[in-house]
């Protein structure tokens, strides 16, 4: 029976959906006797804090300072440490977003606390808090036990957002932000170089299973062309320089929802699944029957892609007459 501190995240002037997902986990734990408090940081965020207090945040500490207007690892770490001290929290929940994974480890190290990351489940195991998370890029799951004060980051989308209302209140927190060595300069939106996969009805994506860059033109592109669709790729393909970044489907690339998504030689690391699991119909072709891609696929083919894809291309071409 302890106190949970949710660190909410503001993005583009609103509280992120992921923060309400943290509230869902926290409110579930509140059912087993844990108290829920939250932290909202930024500048001019009182209104957002009041909203969060009523939508799952409970008692919300509001840390406002010029140094918190934009994200910086140092300032957010200091604000969170001040909130932990003020709230007496023994479980700190932070979303595993680009800012969350940047400062949460610093908070844990400063508190000499247990640190568990990218959890998809947080539950009360009779007093202790249990966590579940993916390892080996989603090929295995792990059940993790943490003792003492715990800082945990939670995978966005792991649970539906909290929909209920809470009797909350807001309290100002003087976070006393000191020296910040990391300085925010600006956010740049990468220019699109012409490959807009988000508008394609059909996407055929290739992964590391293709084995070589020329296989994309020989095997993947012809199927995409036959279906009148676009070609995509997984992160390892882009990292290896086989295709430019704009082909990448995934959380750090393009998030796509075509009518048909065909994954060829893609094992299905979580960052790829996040980018395509909203597709209307998913076909996965992979020789590894345990590949996580089959979890999200509607139809799976466990076979050598170099046998299946050319046959499929020929059959599609024939079907078109």
């Amino acid at each position: 029976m302890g106190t949970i501190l949710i660190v909410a995240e503001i993005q583009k002037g609103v509280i992120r959906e992921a923060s309400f997902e943290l509230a869902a986990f926290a409110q579930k734990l509140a059912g087993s006797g844990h108290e829920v408090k939250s932290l909202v940081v930024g500048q001019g965020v009182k209104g957002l804090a009041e909203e969060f207090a009523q939508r799952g945040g409970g008692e919300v500490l509001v840390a406002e300072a010029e140094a918190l207007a934009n994200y910086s690892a140092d300032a957010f770490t200091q604000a969170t440490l001040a909130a932990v001290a003020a709230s007496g929290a023994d479980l700190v929940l932070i979303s595993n977003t680009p800012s969350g994974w940047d400062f949460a480890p610093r908070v844990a190290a400063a508190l000499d606390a247990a640190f568990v990351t990218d959890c998809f489940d947080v539950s009360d195991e009779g007093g202790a808090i249990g966590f579940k998370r993916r390892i080996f890029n989603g090929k295995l799951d792990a059940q993790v036990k943490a003792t003492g004060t715990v800082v945990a980051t939670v995978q966005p989308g792991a649970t539906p957002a909290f929909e209920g209302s809470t009797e909350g209140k807001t309290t100002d927190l003087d976070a006393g932000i000191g020296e910040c060595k990391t300085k925010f300069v600006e956010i740049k939106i990468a220019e699109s170089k012409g490959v807009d996969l988000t508008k394609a009805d059909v996407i055929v994506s290739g992964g590391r299973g293709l084995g070589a860059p020329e296989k994309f033109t020989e095997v993947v592109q012809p199927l995409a062309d036959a279906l009148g669709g676009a070609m995509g790729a997984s992160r390892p393909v882009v990292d290896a320089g086989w295709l430019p970044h704009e082909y990448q489907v995934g959380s750090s690339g393009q998030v796509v929802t075509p009518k048909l998504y065909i994954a060829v030689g893609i094992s299905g690391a979580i960052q790829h699944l996040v980018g395509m699991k909203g597709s209307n119909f998913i076909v996965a072709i992979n020789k590894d029957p345990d590949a996580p891609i089959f979890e999200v696929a509607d139809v799976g083919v466990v076979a050598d892609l170099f046998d299946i894809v050319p046959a499929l291309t020929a059959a599609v071409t024939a079907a078109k007459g």
Partner: protein
Amino acid sequence: MKILVCLKQVPHSDARLDIAGDGKWIQEDNIKFEINSYDTYALEEALKLKDAGEAEVVAVSIGPDRVTQALRTALGMGADRAIHVNDPAMEGSDSLGIAKVLAAIVKEESPDLVFAGLMSEDGNFAAVPPMVAQLAGLPSSTAVMSVSLADGTVTVERELEGGALEVVQLPTPCLLAVQSGLNQVRYASLKGIMAAKKKPMDTKTAADLGVGDQVGAGAAKVEIEKVYTPPRGEGAQLIEGSADEVATQLVGKIKELGLL
């Protein structure tokens, strides 16, 4: 300039992942290991800075005897010397325990820059690098996609979601945890591999670094209780048969979607 690069040796990306007898990790006997791919990008970024000017690149890794192979590879690629923390007492350490050992090395070596990979391909924790920075009193940035250095100020681009980048400035010394894909990683040349044999490799224990009582299973606050194959959801409907039979069935599905 001195650059420290933190490397982890992890199971090869093609290695079989069989769950160990105690159910708490994978069976690591008789599988191949390699340098964690994110860390190869970290090493490459350090070597690029060395190529562009004067720098000593020190590769650091923690783990059993097999880790010397990873460090020899790093030396072969161009690192100048290596530090191997080889200590059975570290068995069962959590991220914080590992970070304490690396932070002790950072304090001892006083590098201008510390590079690490964003996360490891095995545990996927992404925890250690910023923890090291916090414990060593350094600023840090993660998911770094580009690095430029001028007059003691490092400017990095961090990867955000949906193709956006965040530009951040940090003073040296600082720690950068790099995202995969920020450069093209070189291979160790034959000449490099030969030269590596003469490069120094120090072996240390946690006790040598003054943190012997803060590592290992006894000090760990996080314990993996069980690893298991993720429960399958409804899963995919599997189509079997010859390539042509599979293709015919798939064309049927695509027609049902109204796409043919």
